[in-house]
């Protein structure tokens, strides 16, 4: 369960951004979590709800956009279909993860005085 330590890092970042803008409250936090990032969105959400109490995020929902894994070929750039070996179906080249491993803080909506 490393989602708690991810939320801890997330909250530190959000609090720093809020402080830099003299925000009075955070209204929404938006993150992007890749399918192959090693972070479980549901666990992340639960951890966030626990951590946000008595913080500047106390009433801010966490929006999680889940990013599916997309592979393409290192050699020819074509998309590599999922489910089989991670090799290009056209040229046989090795696949490369184009997206799906991100753990990103995208946006914070905050109330400023």
């Amino acid at each position, binding site marked *: 369960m490393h989602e708690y330590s991810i939320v801890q*890092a997330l909250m*530190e970042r959000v609090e720093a951004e809020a402080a830099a803008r003299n925000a009075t409250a955070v209204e929404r936090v938006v993150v992007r979590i890749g399918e*192959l990032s090693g972070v479980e969105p549901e666990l992340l959400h639960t951890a966030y709800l626990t951590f946000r109490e008595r913080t500047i995020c106390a009433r*801010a929902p966490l929006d999680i956009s889940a990013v599916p894994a997309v592979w393409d070929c290192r050699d020819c750039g074509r998309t590599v279909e999922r489910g089989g070996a991670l090799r290009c179906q056209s040229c046989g080249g090795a696949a490369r993860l184009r997206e799906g491993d991100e753990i990103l803080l995208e*946006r914070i909506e905050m*109330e*400023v005085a």
Partner: protein
Amino acid sequence: MCGTCGCGDPNVVPVDVHERILSGNERQAEHNRYHFFESGVLAVNVMGSPGAGKTAVLESTALALAGRRRIGALAGDLATDNDANRLEAAGIRARSITTGSACHLDAAMVHHALHHLAWSDLDYLFIENVGNLVCPAVYDLGQAANVVLLSITEGEDKPLKYPVMFNKADLVLITKVDLLPHMAEISVERIRASLARVMPDPRAIEISARSGQGLEAWLDWLFRQERAVTQGPLVAVAKE
């Protein structure tokens, strides 16, 4: 007040951040990586389930390289110093990182432990992560390579169940292969086929710490990594 209904409350401002949440850990990892590079130490993050054979493989590695390479280890464990004690007995300069309830090591824990281990004259530093196929995959420690152990008794589809971990592996050690004669239902080919579905460049060595099978191939792999560390791509690593 109104951040949810879209009424356009002028006091609510959106701030685009677009930053990796673990960027703090990543900065610390780059700092560790620079230290390793500067001292010419090959740092390897060793991961795998509890009982996959991480400590046993490191013990036999140290015995095979005795007098040829200076080896150190940081052993992550929830509660005991047992692994570090075993590694010490095998001639490895070892230090425990007792994580308490944490299920993984992070770059700051490694950095802290480095202050308590004479490591800079080592050839290899193995960072034996907490036994876990999930969380350790998420945290860069500053290593040059990830090695994941998978024992044959764990099931051929383990890589499909834990794709993130195996996707991050530069090398998989398929361990305990001395047990294969007793386990007719286990096929190394099927393990390798599972690995090919989660690793674009599947590299795996079948190894037994007990019989010594595969040890030479594993040592060769380490020697190649060692050359890459002293001459290779890490030259581009910048000092933090």
